[in-house]
């Protein structure tokens, strides 16, 4: 609304087409970041994920100075200790410290999640960019392959891989990513199809840019927003998949701790040592919830289609 007092007091504005050169350059990234920062729930959840990741990275420090035990260190004199005292979150059937195992389990679980995201984004983005940009038979070939990948019953692949190899965090991430990249490829392809029809792509071609330059310098930055959103929303999903695989014994094998296989162990003792179920369960629940809420916040801030 126009404030009459102000309208009289100010001089005529400068010619409109000049714009205001003093206004700081607001990039898409700055604006998105501002929007994200304004979302309090998103920031709290994002910070929680970061804190969990830092704890996982610094796990040896915590065990050395806080819990004073190793994750696989047995203490058969102190089995099934309830939370409190020397063992803050209690011990399991072999006297291993629950907190220590949670911290080390976070290393595995979060590590697998981030590695999976990195792998599936890299592959999916590459395939999506090529299929979307070149179109025609390249598109047909690549996207039919994606259809095959997405039609493959993932659980059989997981079982097969668990039989053939002893799952390590790296192989587990590779296996989950090998079914996860298809969705990313579709997403990126769809975005490329719309972006490449915009005039600036034609304009860039008209100044003599090569395909590689068009794809990497001009298309990729324009699909980055959807990638960021896909990545953050994917973290929660992958943590759940990983936990489920561990729980079923198809993922990380004991004695290496992961949030999923801690649950497997504890189900036998649920009635007399409930904390063995509660702590890994709550950790998974809170982490996935935070990842999803943060993902939603990132989507609200970054997704150009929501504007």
């Amino acid at each position: 609304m126009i404030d009459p007092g102000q309208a009289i007091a100010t001089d005529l504005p400068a010619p409109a087409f000049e714009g205001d050169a003093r206004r700081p350059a607001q990039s898409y990234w700055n604006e998105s970041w501002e929007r994200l920062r304004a979302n309090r729930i998103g920031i709290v959840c994002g910070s929680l994920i970061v804190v969990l990741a830092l704890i996982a990275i610094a796990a040896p420090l915590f065990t050395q100075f806080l819990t004073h035990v190793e994750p696989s260190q047995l203490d058969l004199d102190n089995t099934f200790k309830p939370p409190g005292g020397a063992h803050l979150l209690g011990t399991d059937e072999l006297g291993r410290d629950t907190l220590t195992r949670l911290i080390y389990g976070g290393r595995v679980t979060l590590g697998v999640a981030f590695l999976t995201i990195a792998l599936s984004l890299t592959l999916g983005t590459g395939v999506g960019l090529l299929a979307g940009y070149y179109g025609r038979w390249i598109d047909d070939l690549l996207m039919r392959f994606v259809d095959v990948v997405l039609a493959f019953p993932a659980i059989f692949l997981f079982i097969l891989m668990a039989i053939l190899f002893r799952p390590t965090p790296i192989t587990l991430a590779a296996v989950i990513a090998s079914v996860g990249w298809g969705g990313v490829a579709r997403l990126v392809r769809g975005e490329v199809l719309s972006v490449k029809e915009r005039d600036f792509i034609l304009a860039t071609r008209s100044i003599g840019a090569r395909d590689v330059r068009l794809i990497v310098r001009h298309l990729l930055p324009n699909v980055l927003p959807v990638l960021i959103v896909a990545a953050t929303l994917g973290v929660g999903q992958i943590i759940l998949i990983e936990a489920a695989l561990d729980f079923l014994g198809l993922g990380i094998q004991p004695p290496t701790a992961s949030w999923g296989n801690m649950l497997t162990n504890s189900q036998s003792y649920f009635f007399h040592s409930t904390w063995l179920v509660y702590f890994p369960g709550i950790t998974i629940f809170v982490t996935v919830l935070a990842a999803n809420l943060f993902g939603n916040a990132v989507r609200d801030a970054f997704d150009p289609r929501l504007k």
Partner: protein
Amino acid sequence: MATTLLEVQDLRTVFATKNGNVKAVDGVSFHLDAGETLGIVGESGCGKSVTAMSVIGLQRPGRIVGGRVLFMGRDLTKASETEMREIRGQEIAMIFQDPMTSLNPVFRTGWQVGEPLRLHRGVDGIRALAGAVAMLGKVGISSPAERAKSYPHQFSGGMRQRAMIAMGLTTTPKVLIADEPTTALDVTIQAQILDLLRQVNREFGTATILITHNLGVVAGMCERVMVMYAGKVVESGPTTDVFAHPKHPYTWSLLRSIPRLDAERHEALKPIEGLPPNLIDLPKGCAFHPRCPFKIEKCSRDTPVLNRVGATQLAACWVTQAGTELKGA
């Protein structure tokens, strides 16, 4: 006699569709001399833009099926993709209709305006930016050093078109193809951009091809004009002659359809009746004959070719080639 920079001979570009081949450009010939401004006018879909795109080899998914595009003696239709990239943005620059979408939204304007310099002159980012800033200043953007840091969405439509022109000019090309450069802008900005194009033409000696459907723009800007209809050139000649004595009924109808301020209030506008023909299935004979008020029997039988009519003009019309004047209410 000025040297001929660009000579297009019998250019044919088709688009393959499910329903058949669309002959978007059907035997177009024209030439462009150094330093001149050539106007190409016609309705939407008559092949103006495809002609321009074919010149720089960006007609995809269309295919050039015939003719030659001679740029300083070299046939561009036979040039390799690598050679074409050297031509594009270095020798021949192009600016597009919609400045709102012609700049990449994720990069600072200065970075983009300097891109041809980095691509073709191999200069580093800092010097490309300096070149971009200098050129932004020349195209009339105030405080160019600050504006170069802005993103495209912070520019108005007119400023973006200025930026596009600056981007085209950084490498001082010999030919600038402006494809409807003012169509998306409002009238006051249109005048500024046209002024700028005229100034560019004078200062840099850049030969300009101005594609437009606005006859007023052509009258003010171009020495010569070429009128296209259904993928063919139907008339060409010096702008003043073509406008004063059109030798093709299509040009005549176009000129007559412009609303006039001095017309009587009750006088109805005079549109060209009918629709442009289907480019897959052109009418036999002259493509314009179903809409032509002057048509004679021969028009629906034989296709007219472009021939000299009058002292300075070329027209593809049986009626005027037979010496008949185009007159009527």
